[in-house]
């Protein structure tokens, strides 16, 4: 059984709000960069960058990182055939970087992403933007920008669908028994 918690419009409004908050907090786009975490964080970062461009007239640079090889649970989850190249097409030095991901859960992905990011250079500051915060943190990590807080139980699964190819955007909560795993 799946319950929709955000639809296309909801997602668009949440991202627009996050874009405003980022501009507000950082006094514009100067020295700002967005880095999406593969897989869903990358299109989200791109959409936020576009929203910022509509507000400020300048689009901040967008990068992508794959954190597969940084996970502390790699041995538990096992090797994956799906890995993407990390691509940071700008110098991180003195940049204010906003990490972007779809769902914030235990915090382990973000910890790995921080490790990965720092291997590319030394940013001036790192902030975190997520579309969904579902709670259950296992590490002292919190998001600076949240699209929607969604209380969940651990047995549930949050599924984010981003229609990059014309399909509909949506966020669903599923019972694990009904889930994909």
């Amino acid at each position, binding site marked *: 059984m799946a319950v929709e918690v955000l639809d296309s419009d909801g997602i668009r409004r949440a991202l627009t709000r996050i874009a405003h908050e980022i501009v507000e907090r950082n006094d514009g786009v100067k020295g700002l960069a967005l880095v999406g975490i593969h897989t869903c964080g990358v299109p989200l970062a791109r959409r936020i960058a576009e929203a910022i461009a509509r507000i400020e007239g300048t689009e901040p640079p967008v990068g992508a990182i*794959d954190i*597969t*090889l*940084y996970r502390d649970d*790699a*041995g538990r*989850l*096992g*090797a*994956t*055939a*799906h*890995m*993407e*190249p*990390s*691509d940071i097409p700008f110098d991180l030095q003195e940049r204010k970087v906003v990490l972007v991901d779809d769902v914030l859960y235990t915090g382990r992905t973000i910890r790995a992403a921080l*490790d990965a990011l*720092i*291997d*590319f*250079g030394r940013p001036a500051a790192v902030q975190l933007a997520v579309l969904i915060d579902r709670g259950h943190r296992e590490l002292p990590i919190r998001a600076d920008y949240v699209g929607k807080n969604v209380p969940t139980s651990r047995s549930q699964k949050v599924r984010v669908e981003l229609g990059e190819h014309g399909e509909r955007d949506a966020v669903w909560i599923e019972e694990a028994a009904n889930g994909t795993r």
Partner: protein
Amino acid sequence: MALGNRHLLGLEGVSAEDITVLLDTAESLVEVSRREVKKLPALRGKTVINFFVENSTRTRTSFEIAAKRLSADAISISSSSSSMAKGETFEDTARNLAAMSPDCIVVRHPASGAARFLAGVVDCSIINAGDGSHEHPTQALLDLLTIRQRKKCAWKDLVVTIVGDIVHSRVARSNLFGLRTLGATVRLAGPPTLLPEEFREFGAELYYDIGSAVQDADVIMMLRIQHERMASNYFPTLNEYARYFCLNAEKVARAKPDVIILHPGPINRGIEISSEVADGPYSVIMSQVANGVALRMALLYQLIIPGADGIRGSALVEPAVTAAPGRARIE
């Protein structure tokens, strides 16, 4: 599902899917060498032993860097520093290495089948880094990666010509198996003494004339010619070998205009490849070296981290032993 130890003993029998996963993973790791901090924590706490019974600075260094970039503890043991120099058997040396609980042993050995033998003796993943005249799968995989980066067409539309001492070349065998699995056309060229007819049975086309062999080829792979072959009369002199099989600009002109030229190194300039070609615009020899590290990182990760989502191919696990191998048909 328990997969047990996974090995890469050769490319013979490895599926196109597994080869593609390895190439994809390697592709995503190419950028690591351009980072400020060239290190990933994926294999932290894992131990990789490079066991090189036959010397090869190039391959050993590549594996060492690959293991270290993934944060594995990598140590190298060469034949002169191992007890084999003191008369210990290969099996005993292997058991001693296994007692150190490595997660993976990378082995280079002058005897064909040595990697396979090791896989039967020790309880960890084995990577064949070249066994005698048999296979050198990581060299072939990095060649495949290099080809794929430069050629955007499908494998089945590619013509790859391999020239030189085919019969003694583990690089040629691994490339032949890998390329045929992916669907490419493979032409082998060399004097008949170094190119047995049996290679036809593995799907290769045979040529004794390098000119026809490279006609309209997309990729030319030149093999290193070993000087000692002369002593066994495989050909009369290096000079005469070069006369018929040296890749020079005139022969390259017969290939496709966007042909690329590979060589596993080290090069004998003027013997199998002329300097103008080796240093020319078609040569991708330096990309091969860079791809070698990324490919070996991908392989170490895929073999050492057990996962159902990664590679799973037949030859990567211990091949099943049939009940009565080699039994002749009898009615």
